[in-house]
Every structure is written in C-alpha cells, then in structure tokens.
C-alpha cells in the first residue's frame, strides 16, 4: 500500500492510501474539537444536518437520489469522544472507478459530494440552517435520545458513565439532553458549525485502488487559512477513593452489571490493553472461562479498555439473583491477574490473539483509516510492526504490575423493577 500525507492548510491534512486490491473508494473526514459538553447537543445535531441536504441537493429526497446515482454510495457520519476530544466523522464509501458501468469518474464525485455537504450546507439566509431541515433533524435527535433505552447493554454503559466519569466530559450524554436539544435553534447550531470549520483539526483519509492525484487540490481549495485547536487525547480518569455503587431499575428480564476499574499513574497502553484482553477480552480470558464457562452465570461477561482514560469496563448480563455472585466473581478474577495466579499460557495466548488481529490491519479500507488516524492523534501510538514487538515483549511481571494498578472505581446495576 502506498501512503502519502499532504498538509493542505493549518490543521487540515489529507492522507492518501492507494491499495489496488480494494474495489471501493473511501473518503473519511474527521473533525476534532476539545470537549465542551454544553455544545454536545448542537454538535450531535450537526452531522445529519450536513448530510441529509445541502445547497446543491437541498432536500433529503434529492440527496438520496444523488447517492443512488453514484451506485448506492454510502454516506454516513458518527460522533464520538476520544479522551476529552470530541470527534465527528463524515465518510463516503462507493465502488471504485474500475467498476463504474459507464466509465464515470466516481472518486472526484465522492470528494465533491462530501465537500458540498461539509462546506455548502442547506441554509436560510447567511447564518442559519434551513429551518425546515433543522426541525426535522431536531425531532430525529430527540427520538434517538428517547430510544437509547432500547439496547439495554449499551444503555447501562451510558448510565454507568455518568458515575464513572463524574466531573469529566465523558460523563455527559453524547447527544446532549432532550432539554438541550429542544433549546437549539438553526442559528445556534450554525454558530457551532462555523466554529468547527474555523478551529477543528481536520484529518481527511482516502483509501482506494486508484491514485488520488487530484484530491489534494480539491481539498486544498476547499479550506481557507485557519487557526486550529491542538489534539490532546490522553486524559486519564482518577480512581475514586471508595468505589461508588449505583442501582437503577427497569422492566427487564435480565439485569445489567457494569463495573469500572481505573489505573492511576503512568501506564503503558500496550500493558493496559493486554491486561483487559487477558481479563475479559477473548474466549480464553479469565472472565469467559470462569464467570461464564465454569460458573454458568451469564452469556456474556467481558471487559474492554478505554485506554486514554485508563479505564477498564466490564459488562455482564446476569439474572437478578446472581448479580452479587457475578460481581464477586469478576473481582476475584481481577485478583487472579493481580496476584499472578495465572498460567504463562494465558499471556502467550493473548499475545498471539493480538498479533493475529494486528496483522489483519490493512485488509479493509476502514482498518487502514483507523490505523492512520490513531497514529496521527496519539503521540505514543506505535505502528503495526512496533505494536507487534511491544505486545510480544510484555512479561508476566509487567502484566501483574499493571493489573495491580487497576482498582474498582464504580459499579452500576440495572435491576429488574420491583426486585430489591
């Protein structure tokens, strides 16, 4: 794969990756801002407002038709938090030029459509989004917030984060609250949009079979000189002196248990990721083998790491009467890791698992983009080859030390209504 980086303006970069094996053209535009939770509602409304219509295709119907003409181009967006940075991603994925039935130049069309969406939105006048489009998106966002309850596992994690990250941006709902969304206007959302265009770090990624010589110029013309924010993703979350336990109830068949463990002090990213993998990240890990397989307490009990926050999250779906038993078993398995009461084999298995997964990078356009993006936003992010080396070199002693740093910060339980 050939990779070229072009600095197009202050805070605007294009990374172009040419990989002949792919049959698609993919362009992702990432915009990063330091978190301002009071703006989450406006920021959350923005992506759909930009994608569902624009000046050239001023209705959702026209936009949909345009995407259908482009062989069902897939245009979508997401917002997320990386540490204390807020990120918006807008991306387009469509077939490569070689598969266009009439020889159309799809790559340029993809870039132009993305830029139309980002730079030439559907406005009423100069400084406000179209009131009609705004109302539709506002209603949609309210429905999205209301329906967060539907997926019980992710709902429980969202609720748990209010306690886990209290006082930090991550404690806030990603799309704001219903009240905050209701308070927005086409003008206020336009104001945050303008601010993002002026200040956000903009990282653009292209992955496709063809060279993309024309793309730097297309994107260079699009962005004016600007003064941008710094990227800073690492923002460890401090462990509470005493674990905090929060219980809520709902009409559910299965209870949700979320436990957060935090590691204070300097920690190596690879050691934290490895700890989480050995603890509960794979079917050979301690939580799967013990809490699920040996104790038959649950269908899933797994851990994941939010490493910029030094936080390990465990989620488990369990029946009401076994919540306490599961909680104790999870803590017990962490003690196993901390006391080094595990076989060397577990570490070797996890190393193989990581290395195998790392070597899959580059086989999908999205993994190419994620890898290049991670390298750019995290100063300590090693490339794939270096990561393989770092994971391979980790010792049992390092795992024990890192595991010991993880302490219970908080427990969230979503119980059945009517049960104690």
């Amino acid at each position, binding site marked *: 794969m050939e990779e070229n980086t072009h600095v197009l303006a202050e805070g605007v970069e294009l990374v172009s990756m040419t990989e*002949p094996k792919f*049959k*698609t053209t993919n362009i992702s535009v990432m915009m990063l801002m330091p978190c301002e939770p009071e703006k989450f509602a406006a920021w959350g409304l923005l992506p759909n407002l930009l994608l569902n219509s624009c000046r050239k295709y001023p209705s*959702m*119907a*026209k936009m*949909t*038709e345009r*995407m*259908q*003409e*482009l*062989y*069902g*181009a897939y245009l979508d967006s997401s917002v997320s938090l990386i540490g204390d940075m807020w990120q918006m991603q807008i991306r387009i*994925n*469509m*077939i490569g030029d070689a*598969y266009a*039935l009439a020889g159309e130049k799809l790559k340029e069309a993809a870039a132009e459509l993305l830029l139309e969406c980002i730079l030439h939105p559907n406005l009423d006048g100069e400084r406000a989004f179209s009131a009609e489009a705004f109302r*539709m998106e506002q*209603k*949609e966002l309210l*429905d999205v917030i*209301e*329906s967060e*309850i*539907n*997926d*019980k596992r992710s709902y429980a994690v969202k609720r748990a984060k209010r306690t886990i990250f209290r006082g930090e941006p991550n404690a806030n709902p990603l799309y704001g609250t219903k009240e905050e969304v209701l308070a927005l206007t086409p003008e206020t959302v336009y104001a945050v949009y303008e601010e993002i265009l002026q200040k956000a770090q903009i990282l653009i990624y292209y992955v496709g079979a063809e060279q993309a010589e024309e793309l730097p110029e297309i994107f260079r013309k699009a962005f004016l000189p600007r003064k941008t924010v710094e990227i800073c993703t690492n923002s460890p979350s401090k462990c509470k002196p005493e674990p905090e336990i929060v219980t809520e109830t*709902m*009409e559910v*068949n*299965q209870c949700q248990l979320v436990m957060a463990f935090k590691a204070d002090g300097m920690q190596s990213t690879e050691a934290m990721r490895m700890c989480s993998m050995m603890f509960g990240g*794979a*079917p*050979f890990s301690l939580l*799967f083998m013990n809490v*699920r*397989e040996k104790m*038959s*307490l*649950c*269908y*899933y009990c797994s851990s994941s790491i939010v490493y910029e926050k030094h936080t390990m999250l465990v989620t488990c*779906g*369990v*029946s009401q009467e076994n919540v306490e038993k599961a909680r104790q078993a999870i803590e017990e398995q962490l003690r196993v890791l901390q006391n080094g009461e595990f076989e060397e*084999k577990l570490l070797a*298995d996890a190393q*193989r*698992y990581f*290395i*195998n*997964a790392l*070597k*899959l990078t580059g*086989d*999908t*356009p999205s993994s190419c983009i994620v890898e290049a993006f991670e390298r750019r936003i995290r100063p300590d992010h090693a490339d794939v080859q270096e990561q393989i080396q770092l994971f391979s070199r980790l010792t049992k002693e390092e795992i024990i030390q890192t595991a010991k740093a993880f302490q219970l910060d908080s427990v969230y339980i979503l119980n059945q209504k009517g049960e104690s």
Partner: protein
Amino acid sequence: MKQREQELITSSRGGQSCLHVKHETGLNIYIMEMPDFHTAYALFGTKYGSVNTMFRLDGEKDFAKVPEGIAHFLEHKLFENEDTGAFEQYAKTGAIANAYTSFDRTAYLFMCSENFNPSLEILLNFVRHPYFTQETVDKEQGIIAQEIQMNEDEPSWKLFFNSLKCMYHAHPVRIGIAGTIESIRKIDAELLYRCYHTFYNLHNMTLCIAGNVHAEEILAICDKLLVPDENHHLEEIYPSEPYEVLQHEIFDVAPVGVPMFSIDFKLKPKSGEEQLKANLLAELVMDTLFSANTEIYQRMLKENLINFEFGADAPFSGNGYFSIGVGGESRNPREVRKRIFSEIERAKQEGFSQESFERLRKSKYGALIRSMNSVEANASMMLDAYMSGVKPFSKISALAEMTYEQAWQFLREEIDTENAVLSVIHAQGEIL
C-alpha cells in the same frame, strides 16, 4: 495430483472466482483465493437451524420431533470435546473463532492472519468429534438461559418474532432460535447425539473459505482429516402451512423509547434460483416504493408519522417461508400501515417510477461490488449460496437481467396487502 470433481465459478462483473469441489466424503467445498489479502476466513456449516425440528433417516419409520432450540444448543456444546475446548485450541494459533445458529443453518468460523492450516485442522476436528455428557449439558443450560433472557430484552428481536408468530400458523420459523427456558430443559446428551448424527453428515454440510489461502493445501487437509459419511438421505417434514397469516396485528409492551413497528407481508415461498430472483425483485420493489426519496416517505416524515429509522427490511426466506416488509419507529403505526397499503395498491394499478427502479438496480449492483472487498463477506456469500441451493455470484448475474416489467409483475402477483402483519412494541402505558 488427485482427480477431483470440481468447477471454477467466475463473476466477470466482480472480477472474482471461486473453486467448487465436491469432495469424495460428500462435503461441498468452496474456496476463493485472495492472495493480496492477509486475512483468511473459514466457515464450516450445516443445513441445520431452528426450523429443522421433524426428520428421519433411511430405514427409520417415524419422524423424530425434537425440542425447540436444540440446533443452537448443539452449536454451544460442540465447542467442547473430551480433553479441551475448541477456544483453548484456537488460542494456540491466535485465530479469532465463533459460531452462529440461525433458522436454517449452523456455522462455525474462524478468521486469522497466520497459522491458517492448523486452525483449519482445529475447525474440522472439533466439529467432527462431538462429546456430550449430561454434566456438560446441564452446565450449558444456565448460559443459554441468559442468552434467551438477553434476546427477550432486545425489542427488535421481540418485534420480529411477534410478527413471525402472527404470520405463521405452524411452520417452526415462528419459534425462537435459542428455544425457551422450558424447551431447553428437555435437551439431554442422547438427543444432542441424535441431532448431531442426523444433520452433521458431510452430505449436508459445506466448507467455505476465502482469503489468503491455497486451495491445494486446504484440499489436502480435508483429504487427511475427513472420513467419508454415508449418505443417510435425510428427510424432513414441515407442518402444513396455510397461505393466509394467522393474525393481522400484534401489540406488545417493552421498555422502548419511540414505539417500534414492522409491517410484514407473507409471500408464497419458493426455492433455489427462483427464490433468489424473488428476493431481489422484492428488495427492488420495496426500495423503489419506500426509500427516502419517495413522496410517501417524505410526506410521512413531515407529518411526524415516521422518523429516519423507517425503511424496507431485507427479504426473509428459507425452506417454506418467505416474507418482506418495512419497519421503523412511529407513534401511529396503524396510520403508517394504511399509507403503505394504499401506496402498494396504487403502484399495482399505476406502476412506479422506472427511473427510480433503474437507480436502485444500480445501487444494488454497487452494494454487491462493495461487499466483494471483504474476505469475510465473500466466504459468507459462498455459504449462503450453498444453503440456498444456488451457485456463488448468482445474485449479481440475476440482478443484471432484472427488468422493470418483472418487478411490477412481482408486485401485482406476489405482494398482498390482505396478507400482512403489523407488529408493534411500545412502552407500558403508551396509548397508540
């Protein structure tokens, strides 16, 4: 080199080919070599899912009827053998492994970037060597009970199964894939062995592999490890299923935000190529009538009848069942149904936009090409083709030949607004 019954199947449009080998053991093997990729992805599947509940083999007089959820239970238990579990074996190669059971199939899979051959040996060995004891069966009950509870808390799952229960009088597609907490209690080691020996016969199975692999090495491993199975001529029966739906609507309660709904049309099931073409026509018709650029979609959106969750669902078909539908979120799902029915009846009389149909055909072509980017999607495409009784790449070839006239005819002759189910999930106390 060994003489084999084999065929190279090519998609000129997608620029891809795969090898189909009818292995001497009875197994159908499909291999797509993708040397530019690092990933290798293997699926070992059997035509055994939740709908296969009544069967007999050569020489058996009576049809066996087994408890609901047993195919899925078997999938869980096959991961354990006498000495060690399959996951522990995979841990030695680094492969990422899993399995799934659906209505008409069970598949065991792994993905890796290295140690492909030893991982393939693990896959073939553990699936071919069952080991069940009452103790291990009992242990699994608790895990699967939690999986069932998890599904019951998933409103879209509940919405879908409620709809199936209303569409089908007797066909086992109306049963949950994992069964119920009561039904899985009836499962024992003996029953698992019986189902295993019935359905995990190589004549009923396929091995589909895509990615950075070598066909000759795969075939050598199959030659080494697979022992031929005698063809038992598996015979299955399904309860007689009327054309009409059992019930036209169902409303159920669960903790959800905006009420969820689906409107599903029960259609006459088909098989093989005919079903594949019907699925494509159904997708094209429903997208042409109800995608985001249509007048009806925009009108319903403006009137707050739907939100962006609205859209046509993928066709749902298999042995003896076929349905298509639309779904989304609405606070007035009965009004949405009225509008949908009226649009279908209008389109039956007047036709629909030919230009829009052609754009969607182009979109569908784009989606198929996009999926060929993925090693995983290619292996799944081959498995799906085997399970559906068609050749790999049939979908993209059939799409090229599809016409507006065929789509309109399909709409007129197959989609019946009298034969549909409205399924709704809403919060307790919400009046709809």
